């Protein structure tokens, strides 16, 4: 990497099901102000802005232009990036490239969504091909369900394994994250007794849809060092947006895009033994089932080892590799912000600013994004500018 880039500030709103006390621009403004405060900067310090959401959730065209009243983008360079569910991680990576290019020193990245303004599943369904796929496709839940059916039959995983992930993430949100949307302490029996929405996925296995925003400030090395003693350095980025036709892809028990994106990001970061080198992970797990089946794609266990990893408890708080101390996507899902929240939460961990969520001594963190048609983005962050 020619130029190092670090995260110097993170902000987010209090996430909830329906935000009734302010409009979208104001929601954005809350996250931006908090990120600026977190970095001890003002809007005058920001050289460029990247923003992202999914158009049809709010039905506002050219959100980059619309948002300037909330983003502080008046008379500044601003650009929109959007890639579906991976939008949050894609804008994080775009912010990284803004600073890594040398064109901008301090870059504000904003992800947001007011999902309550639309029918999320109906809006997602229009992503499918109008001729061959749309008639039988209904949002994101069905493909994820089919994916775990394939995984269970291939690797002897169970619905209870997925329930363990749901319990872990929901309880982390309830105990440690004041900003999370769903903050309830639950047990495996609660998950197992909740209603099926698409077998084997039950209500408590699935992420909510959320109103919320997140803002993260990226800075070039020189600026980052001036702003804070301990930035979260970006050591690696990888993105893989393979086109998957549902008719081809849903039989897959694994997630090739995550494997490829992780390989790229790990290679850039110098990670060869992810399970031992990574201290904490913030993963875009849209359904608890994926929290079992995608662990191997990240190199955290052997093929088919997801159930073993989850049952062992090492991914719980206090374990060797805590996953989603924030409660993750199962607790909070403002879609355009969701991937950026993973990067922001991972950054707070390695900056030592995660408060009650803090994993003690966390030096290396990984964040992921998921979306599109089984697309993945991976980011590796560290309190150190490079791994030895």
């Amino acid at each position, binding site marked *: *990497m*020619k*130029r190092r880039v670090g995260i110097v500030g993170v902000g987010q709103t209090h996430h909830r099901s329906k935000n009734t006390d302010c*409009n979208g621009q104001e929601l954005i403004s809350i996250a931006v102000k908090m990120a600026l405060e977190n970095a001890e900067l003002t809007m005058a310090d920001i050289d460029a802005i990247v923003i992202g959401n*999914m*158009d*049809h959730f709010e*039905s*506002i*065209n*050219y959100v*980059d*232009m*619309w*948002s*300037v*009243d909330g983003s502080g*983008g*008046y*008379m*500044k*360079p*601003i*650009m*929109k*990036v*959007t*890639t*579906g569910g991976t939008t949050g991680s*894609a804008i994080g*990576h*775009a912010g990284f*490239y*803004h600073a*890594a*290019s*040398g*064109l901008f020193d301090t870059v504000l990245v904003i992800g947001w969504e007011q999902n309550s303004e639309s029918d999320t599943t109906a*809006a*997602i*369904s*229009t*992503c499918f091909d*109008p001729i061959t796929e749309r008639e039988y496709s209904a949002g994101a839940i069905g493909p994820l369900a089919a994916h775990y059916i394939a995984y269970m039959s291939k690797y002897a995983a169970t619905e209870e394994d997925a329930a363990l992930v749901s319990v872990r993430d929901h309880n982390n949100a309830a105990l440690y994250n004041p900003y999370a949307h769903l903050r309830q302490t639950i047990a495996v029996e609660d998950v197992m007794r909740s209603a099926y929405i698409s077998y084997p996925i039950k209500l408590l296995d699935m992420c909510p849809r959320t109103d919320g925003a997140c803002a993260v400030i990226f800075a070039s090395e020189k600026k980052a060092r001036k702003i804070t003693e301990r930035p979260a350095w970006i050591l690696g*980025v*990888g*993105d*893989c*947006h*393979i*086109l998957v036709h549902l008719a081809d892809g849903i039989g897959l028990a694994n997630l090739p895009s995550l494997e490829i994106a992780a390989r*790229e990001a790990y290679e*850039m970061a110098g990670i060869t033994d992810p399970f031992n080198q990574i201290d904490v992970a913030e993963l875009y797990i849209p359904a608890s089932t994926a929290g079992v089946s995608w662990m191997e794609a990240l190199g955290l266990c052997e093929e088919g080892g997801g159930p073993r990893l989850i049952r062992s408890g090492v991914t719980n708080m206090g374990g060797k590799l805590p996953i989603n101390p924030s409660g993750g996507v199962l607790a909070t899902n403002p879609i355009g912000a969701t991937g950026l929240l993973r990067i922001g939460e991972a950054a707070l961990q390695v900056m030592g600013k995660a408060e009650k969520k803090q994993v003690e001594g966390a030096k290396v963190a990984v964040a992921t994004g998921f*979306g*599109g*048609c089984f697309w993945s983005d991976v980011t590796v962050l560290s309190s150190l500018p490079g791994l030895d």
Partner: protein
Amino acid sequence: MEKVGIIGVAQTKYQRYNPASHAESAYEVTSKSLEDAGLTIDDIDNTITVCNDFWDGRTISSMTITEATGSHKSPTTNVEGDGTYGALMGLMRLLSGLHEITLVVAQSKISEGIPSVITNAIFDPIYERMLGLDAINSAALQMRSYMSKYGVTEEQCAKVSVKNHKNAKANPYAHLAMDITVEDVLKSRVLADPIKLLDTSPISDGACAIIMARERTAKRKHGKPIWIKGVGHCADAYHLGDRDLAEVDALASAAKRAYKMAGIRSPLKQVHVAEVYDAFSYMELMWMEGLGLCGRGKAGAMVDSGLTEMGGALPINPSGGVLSAHAVQVAGLARIAETVLQLRGEAGDRQVDGASTALAHGIEGACGQGHCVFILGK
């Protein structure tokens, strides 16, 4: 800025209705730009698509062309905005040193949509959308405001339309190439006073792709790389009422940044050809002023003098511009592709002799709220 060269460009013919699907158009320009660069898809190590869910009529619209652009093989992201912003994202990826060759693809199939509905969605849903604002009637407010503040006339705007449609006759990709007179423009149907049909760009289906590479790779892979010398982008306020619509502050700021990077102090003298985003005839005049090619309110007189015509000191839109082919999202990228052809000396009948520095420009949002300016050179 480290040197990045453009080594491949391709466009489809722009037309009112192209039966090709989104993916087929994207595939056509991807293949042709690779051919133009003498590369194969295996040489591309990252891809930027430019898709917008409103114009494409579906969520995660980039899914429609990821396969056709070969992005299954390499990292891909999607910029939603004008094609110039996509090119800028591609440039940043190369400048980071993490990628060598970027493919940028934009496509548009507006024939499947209703532009007035899609552009109505640009406006605030509570305060403005119900007024029926869209791209055309908001531009009418801007044109009126510009004319009354600076004394520019409808005739002077009409001259831009006459010039650009005539230029389009030398551009095989153009959608509307025709000989018209100022009188034809003035007598054409009023769409939203003072904007008339012939002041307005058409609705075009089409696609464009460019391939850019870091210096060493660009030199090794291509005989005539065209170098990116400078770039700048900037956004004005959102609500039309918060802006003085006759002013061009955001463009001036974007241009200032691009000029500084490219070492341009006197743009009128140092730029030899410009392709600007003339979605409406008056816009070319306003953008000339924002780009510092003349003083405020002086663009009308500059057009009267013939300086911006083919053969003039600074030909603007030799391709016929956006007035002659307007594939939204694509149009700014097409401006870059056209200037690359100019600088290579491969612009055919629309070639500006001896051009060695060129300007390409894209806009974003209503009434040019956002601008992106590229300076390219041999």
